[in-house]
């Protein structure tokens, strides 16, 4: 209910008056205004919370309405020219207000159905520096020079490492050999000089693995000297 009062307050006395007239399908004239006077006054009476400024507007309209009604009941009533002006003015303003209200209905129906769009807002980057000698031919030769200077990607040959012998096999082999001779040097074991280089590498890795597992001990007296390998205790690897 509070909301309704607020709405009426915004819409004012003309809105109320026009509603009362249109509800009864009347035209706007003195006769119809005289007939809705009681309803209009009754409405104001029912509203307790009118702000002062707004209630004055309603009361002003109500006063004119009472004048119209009195005239309709007492045709002999003499009205001053001011009073007659007030009555005429109310009729005209009401008619004008109705025209606007009608036009508004058309706008409301139309609003948002067909839209025109402005260009989308973008953050344009403004070109602040463009050399004067910039031409299509110039750009073309420039890009060609740049292309010419791009370093060629050289293809590095890739060597595929063949699986010659697996680490496990080598470890087995090494364990066996160490077990057999208890002391062997790496050159002998890997067959360095006799077998392929890759076997020597795998052999070396196998030796390192055995050291890690604590199966063998190795010793190299000086750099590039023979690597002596020897078993500690076969079968009981130490994990220290």
């Amino acid at each position, binding site marked *: 209910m509070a909301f309704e009062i607020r*709405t009426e307050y*915004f*819409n*004012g*006395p*003309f*809105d109320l008056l026009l509603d009362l007239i249109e509800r009864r399908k009347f035209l706007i004239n003195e006769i119809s205004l005289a007939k809705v006077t009681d309803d209009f006054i009754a409405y104001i009476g029912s509203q307790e919370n009118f702000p002062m*400024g*707004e209630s004055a*507007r309603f009361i002003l*309209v109500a006063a004119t309405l009472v004048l119209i009604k009195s005239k309709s009941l007492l045709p002999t009533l003499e009205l001053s020219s001011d009073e007659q*002006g007030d009555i*005429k*003015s109310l009729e*005209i*303003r009401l*008619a*004008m*207000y109705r*025209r*606007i*209200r009608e*036009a*508004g*209905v*058309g*706008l*409301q129906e*139309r*609003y*948002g*159905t*067909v*839209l*025109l*769009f*402005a*260009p*989308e807002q973008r953050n344009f980057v403004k070109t602040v520096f463009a050399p004067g000698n910039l031409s299509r031919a110039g750009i073309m030769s420039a890009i060609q020079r740049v292309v010419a200077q791009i370093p060629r990607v050289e293809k590095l040959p890739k060597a595929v490492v063949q699986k010659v012998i697996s680490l496990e096999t080598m470890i087995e082999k090494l364990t066996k050999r160490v077990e057999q001779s208890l002391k062997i040097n790496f050159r002998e074991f890997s067959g360095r000089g006799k077998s392929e280089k890759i076997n020597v590498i795998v052999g070396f890795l196998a030796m390192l693995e055995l050291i890690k597992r604590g199966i063998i001990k190795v010793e190299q007296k000086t750099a590039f000297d023979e690597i002596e390998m020897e078993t500690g205790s076969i079968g009981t690897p130490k994990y220290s």
Partner: protein
Amino acid sequence: MPLEAKIEAVLFWKGEPVNIKELAKFLGIEKETVESEIKGLQNSLEGRGLTIVQNGEEVMLYTAPETSELIKKLAHEEMVREISKAGVEVLSLVIYRGPIAKRDIDYVRGVNSSYIIRNLMVRGLIERLDSRDAGSFVYQPTFELLAHLGVSRKEDLPDFAAVQKDIETFMLNPDHEKENNG
């Protein structure tokens, strides 16, 4: 190059409201010539994807009403179509009588419209001009309002001439001035 094409180029590049006077000054031609060229351009754009929206002394390129559905899909426009009854009344006064002073809006509505005017301004549907003639602020529709009504000019609204003429007649009522001074 035809003037029409030059104007089209400027409007496209600007992408914002362009004052007709400034356009005339820039192109070194009469304002009246610009106005007639704009009409010519509007005719040339018939059936194309663009249209010119004219709001008072300013013009701007917009997408054509026929492309509304298409561009709507791209724009994901958040449409709030709700406008209060009072708001619609103020809008129609601003459209049919604009530029219009607040006191004239109040006069027709018979009620103080400050709150509604402020609300419509915040929504970008009407704008305030400092009018020297009226000696006070006057309100006129924004480009956005015209765009949301889908018209190139407010004069293209249905019944525009009829509604304007009626209100004009009412406004000429001598009583108007008396009320305003009160």
